[in-house]
């Protein structure tokens, strides 16, 4: 391992240990590392935005004589009026422009991909149950999915008191939701331990052998 890599690995290792020290209790080493992360991230982000947006999308366009790029530039600058209370109303104009575009683009596609496709997928697989070629477990999964959807929807139906048959169906809905949350929690535990494992792999396999040859 070359000297530069050894130095950078040592800095990374010490910062990792500073962050881990929070597991015992809050302390100045943790605070230092935390503030460093926030500062470096913000600085990196600003430079990335400057290089990737301000230079190519404003400076290079305007200097190339594409004067109409001054319009989005002015709209962007007007957003900054929010920091002066007297002029903050001006920022509503570029904001309205932005919201109008995003809403127009988003609503039809969000509706199509997040709602209609999901309904279609559920109904289609349920309809496929009539097909004799559908294997048993695919059919079983479909029935479970449909029951889960309907009972979960009933749980969120608050216009009728959850008693009697409605209450029983809603209870199945709760169980469905709990199973879903359980699966999410399991994956979350795996995700968090993955982060720990990667850091330990770095400390044990990369840093320490590099440090002591």
């Amino acid at each position, binding site marked *: 391992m070359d000297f530069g890599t050894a130095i950078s690995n040592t800095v990374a290792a010490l910062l990792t240990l500073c962050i881990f020290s929070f597991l015992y209790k809050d302390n100045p080493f943790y605070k230092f590392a935390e503030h460093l992360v926030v500062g470096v991230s913000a600085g990196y982000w600003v430079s990335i935005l400057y290089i990737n947006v301000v230079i190519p999308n404003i400076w290079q366009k305007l200097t190339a004589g594409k004067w109409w790029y001054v319009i989005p530039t002015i709209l962007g600058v007007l957003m900054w009026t929010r920091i002066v209370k007297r002029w903050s109303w001006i920022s509503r104009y570029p904001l309205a422009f932005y919201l109008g575009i995003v809403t127009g683009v988003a609503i039809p596609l969000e509706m199509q991909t997040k709602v209609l496709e999901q309904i279609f997928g559920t109904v289609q697989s349920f309809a496929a149950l009539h097909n004799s070629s559908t294997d048993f477990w695919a059919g079983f999964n479909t029935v479970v999915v449909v029951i889960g959807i309907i009972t979960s929807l009933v749980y969120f139906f608050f216009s009728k008191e959850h008693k009697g048959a409605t209450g029983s169906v809603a209870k199945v809905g709760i169980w469905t939701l709990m199973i879903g949350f359980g699966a*999410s929690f399991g994956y979350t535990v795996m995700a968090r331990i993955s982060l720990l494992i990667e850091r330990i792999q770095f400390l044990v396999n990369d840093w320490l052998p590099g440090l002591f040859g």
Partner: protein
Amino acid sequence: MAENNSRKNIFERMFAIDRRWVYGFLMLAVVLSVIAKPIIPIPISREARSIYDFMNSLNSGDYIHLAMDYDPSTLAELHPMTRAVLKQCFEKKIKVIITALHQNGPGMAAAAIDTACQRHFELTGYRPESGKDWVFLGYKPYPILIILGMGQNYRIPFPNDYYNVPLDSLPMMNGIRNYQNVKAVINISATSATDWWITYGNGRYQVPLAIGVTGVMATDYYPYLQTGQIFGILGGLQGAAEYETLVGTPGKAVEGMSVQVVGHSIIIIFIIIGNIGYFATRKKSKLGL
């Protein structure tokens, strides 16, 4: 009476174990496991295999788009996926268009590509070249607009690549206009970018889409697998380990999954201890003891 007090104390202590004991045991178990390097078999899920089979079915010279939408905070889970996908692409001579639509990701993505190229060189003696075997377009803000823009023409949001070379001067980009020229998008992500690829990439332009996401996100995207909006999913370190196994280079993810078993066992043990303490103290409080 003394025995009762002693048992009560034990259960109360079980119910309220100091979290530092949990962290300490977990840390110790993980460190020992990383040193011991146990290896467990990795079963391959259908959703991981479908991505591998799809990639394997591509011909030399076909194009895919690899969207690396994550930053260093999640590289533990996602970097192994990226490395495995790039390895498969380089081996099969699939050309890769790469983007990094996370503001803290482009530097990390460039380093990951460089490492993948170096590994391919060490294995085969050939180093994949920028502009010929892969193109890294880098980062631009507002991913929704970028995804929509690339659907029309890659040159709209990215007239130049990450290294400031005009796209039109890169041999690999000759005749490559938009998603119609790529066989699929593989989105490896730790952000809402996955939603945007589903809605604006697949939904608007019908480009085939597969995803690799962090464990925290994985369950949210299974409904899209059922509807066919995505054709495969790699979930967290497990998904990464599956893909490493499929491409035949078990690495950090496979090693990590062995450690996961130990880590999960420790957590399960503490959950059981906490629950025993909870139910025992609840029973006693109900009895008024």
